[in-house]
């Protein structure tokens, strides 16, 4: 898909616009559990890396996705958003170099069709681009429309990632793991697979309070918490999880270098937790710079993002060296 559908709606009377939202902040958990049940220990404890050697799978696939969108036109005050989402799995083998083994993209228009003039709507529908609609209430107020559009983009991206990951599981080798950037619990297949791992960088949900929360958020570097089971809510599948500190947080922030790991809800996960943690600590290097989240972002995940961004449509990204003033909204 190209800009052709954008040209079509502009030709049909939509007012051209160019608004690029702040850079995608990554996929946050759309809904989080609150509270957790102990699994490994009666209460949340701190585990040192100990003598457990890191897990060293022969091959690891890393799954991540990106989303890019911009407002390309207005019909009255109703925004018309062009969005692009992509996901890929890059497999790292014995040569330690990631290679793309699966990839998918999607382009869509996000708007409210019944708020568009007939000509613009006809033009948009005539182009064949997939149109995702936001609610009528959100469409009436630009201040609400854009967050709604963002949520739709994130939803589409999550679905794309999930689909790609589930496809890969069917071909996963005996000594191959799949590491997903984000939660596993969206997907029944991913959350139940013995060699799938989710690495969550954002910590919007609170699973603990009081001393347990303090232990979780003040973990020393290369330490993990006990394995726990987040409480189920909604469509989320049962999962085991634990916190892991990749870098010392002293002098920084409580969340600095802190990730939450998700794996299937199975006793083997508890057995493997220390080895898995040691493996992830080893994945700290090379640093995922210049990404601002490098303290929590694994380099192979960063590599997938870099790959996807390199292949994304260039007109969706403001040129970093552009001399034109940046537009606002």
């Amino acid at each position: 898909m190209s800009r052709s559908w954008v040209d079509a709606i502009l030709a049909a009377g939509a007012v051209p616009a160019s608004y690029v939202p702040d850079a995608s902040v990554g996929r946050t958990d759309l809904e989080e559990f609150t509270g957790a049940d102990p699994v490994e220990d009666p209460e949340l404890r701190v585990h040192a890396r100990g003598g457990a050697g890191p897990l060293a799978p022969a091959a690891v696939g890393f799954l991540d996705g990106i989303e890019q969108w911009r407002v390309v036109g207005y019909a009255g005050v109703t925004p018309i958003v062009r969005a692009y989402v992509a996901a890929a799995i890059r497999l790292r083998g014995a040569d330690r170099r990631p290679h793309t083994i699966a990839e998918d993209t999607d382009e869509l228009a996000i708007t409210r069709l019944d708020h568009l003039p007939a000509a613009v709507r006809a033009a948009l529908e005539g182009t064949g681009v997939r149109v995702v609609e936001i609610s009528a209430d959100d469409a009436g107020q630009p201040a609400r429309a854009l967050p709604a559009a963002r949520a739709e983009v994130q939803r589409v991206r999550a679905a794309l990632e999930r689909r790609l990951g589930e496809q890969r599981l069917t071909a996963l080798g005996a000594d191959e793991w799949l590491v997903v950037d984000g939660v596993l619990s969206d997907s029944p297949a991913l959350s139940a697979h013995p060699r799938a791992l989710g690495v969550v960088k954002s910590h919007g949900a609170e699973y603990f309070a009081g001393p347990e929360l303090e232990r979780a958020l003040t973990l020393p570097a290369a330490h993990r918490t006990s394995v726990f089971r987040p409480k189920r809510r909604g469509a989320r599948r049962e999962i085991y999880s634990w916190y892991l500190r990749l870098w010392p947080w002293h002098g920084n922030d409580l969340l600095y270098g802190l990730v939450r790991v998700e794996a299937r809800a199975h006793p083997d996960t508890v057995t493997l937790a220390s080895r898995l943690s040691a493996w992830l600590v080893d994945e700290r290097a090379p640093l995922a710079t210049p990404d601002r989240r490098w303290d929590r972002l694994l380099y192979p995940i960063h590599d997938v993002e870099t790959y996807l961004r390199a292949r994304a449509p260039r007109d969706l990204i403001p040129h970093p060296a552009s001399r034109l003033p940046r537009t606002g909204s």
Partner: protein
Amino acid sequence: MIERRDPPPIGRVVATEQKPATPHQFHFWTANETSIGIGAIVRVEGVGAGDSERVVYGVVTDGFAYSDLATPLHDVVGAEGDPARAAEHPTVRQEIRLWTAAVLRQMPEEPLQPVPLGAVHVASDADVAQALRMDAYLGGAQPTAIPVGLYTSGGLEAPVYLDADFLLGPEAAHLNISGVSGLATKTSAVEFLLGSIFQHFPPHKGRIAAVCFNVKGPDLCFLDQPGALEDEDRRRYERLAVRAQPFERVRYYAPFKADGVNLNTLRTHPELVGDVEPLVWGLREVLDYAEVLLNRDDIDAKADAFIDFLSDRVVDKEFDDGFGGAHRVVTFADLERLFRSIFDGLELSARGDTWRTHHIATIRKVRNRLSNISTRCKGLVTDDGPSNDLPWGRFEDRAVYVVDVANVDPLGQDLVFARAVSKLREHLERRDLGVDAVVVFVDELNKYAPGDGPETYVKKMLLDIAERGRYLGLVLFGAEQFRSQVHRRVVGNAGSIVFGRMDSDELATPGYQVLSPAIKIKLATLPIGELMVRHPHFTQPIFVRFPRPPVLRGRDGVERFPPAADLPFEDAVVRQLVKLDRRVRPNLVKDLIADRREEDVRRALAHTRQTRPQDALAHFKKQLGGRVAPAAAMQRESVPPLNPISDEPY
């Protein structure tokens, strides 16, 4: 001659605002594992409207590799300060191999536009020919291509040709080769190229020969002997369509040593010395080039005038000295007799201090300097007897004339060089040399044509060849260690320039600023057998590999044919006569020259050598003249002694 291949793309042109593609330069990336390197020739194919027919050829001049590491500090942090851990990272960072290429040619050539951002291919044979504009002289009714070596890159190799019109004239001419000493690259390259020229010199351009001055060691003493070649060399010869064989016609010239009978060369092995012609010059040959030998600070205008007088009015003419003596001055000995006659005449006649308007002091000075020449250049310059010279007017096609002056006094080297080049020029101007073009190979230009230092006759000659030789077919192949220290006009007039392994200090001089640091590094580490070539048709320097020359290298030649020890005078004379006539019996010669003055023997031998009679011994005997028996002392009558003194004391 051209093989077409269709190599897969190996890279892609990239351009950014900071590093844009221009009509003369572009950048492209390749996989980390690539066969591309500095000097590789690539082809860029345009894509899209307006560019689909555009093809650009370029040569890689620089390379870059970097990863996505934002700052070295991040690597330190990632490895927690331990360099060993840096190699243990589970993931290898993304890396890039980015190359810079200089445009060799764009097709179509107009309009000249920035290089399209297309796919990059390794150049095939046909691409190399196009890129280097060799298509202009490889084909057609009268091709003028001279193979110079193989361009090799990424498993592909293609012959590279020079244009004879630009290597040997008349469009441009001359070749200059630089490189550090001791690798034999310069000499080997010239030997290979001469062989290639002899085999590929276009028939419509006529006949060609080479005159090589051997100025050090045995470098050029075995050009007619086959050298050891490896299979790879033979394959390269086949690829270049050059026969791997030593030169068929090589003529060696070397002066005598001071004894006048043993040759002053390292090619004195009994099996080879028979091919060496003595180079002997007499008064006539020397006088014309007296200014080469005489110190300009010492010889003033008056002496110059007197030398001119001798040359114009005296030498080779019947001449009356004004004191009743008739002279025909042909040799230094004749000249000495004339000088004695003049001095005696002036003294006896008391006619003052002037003879034929020349002051006696000037005459004495010129006599002193001239007589000194035959002493300093003994072996090359003969006091008496005929000269033996290069075959002026009878030069053979595809022949190499090696003039071995390696062991000659520097003054003698200057004389040999100046006279040989002057004679070549004279004959080429008159078109009566026997060939239409002559390649003159001179090594050690740092010595003979330095950028600074006094204006010597040799330097003037080299400048003359460099600046005017191409009109005559007189082509200079010069070699030196430090190009920056050779006279600018000598190297500047060379149409083709070749570089072997270069000294780093030399590469740091301003003359090499046009080369990228990567090219300089490659030049500083160039292996034996690889050269960088600049030629008028090539818009950028090109690296080529050439096979080992099919001739015996100097040092190998000396091992296989060790020089013979100097022979005693009699044996040396015998050997030269046997060379002229195999029927000559050594004992007869030895009997003949026993008790004869050596200068008489040398004179007779020189005459025999020059005449080359059917019966060499008879001619030699005749020239030697009859043995003059020593006259018995006359008995003088004397007064008989007195009676012995008596023993008596009183």
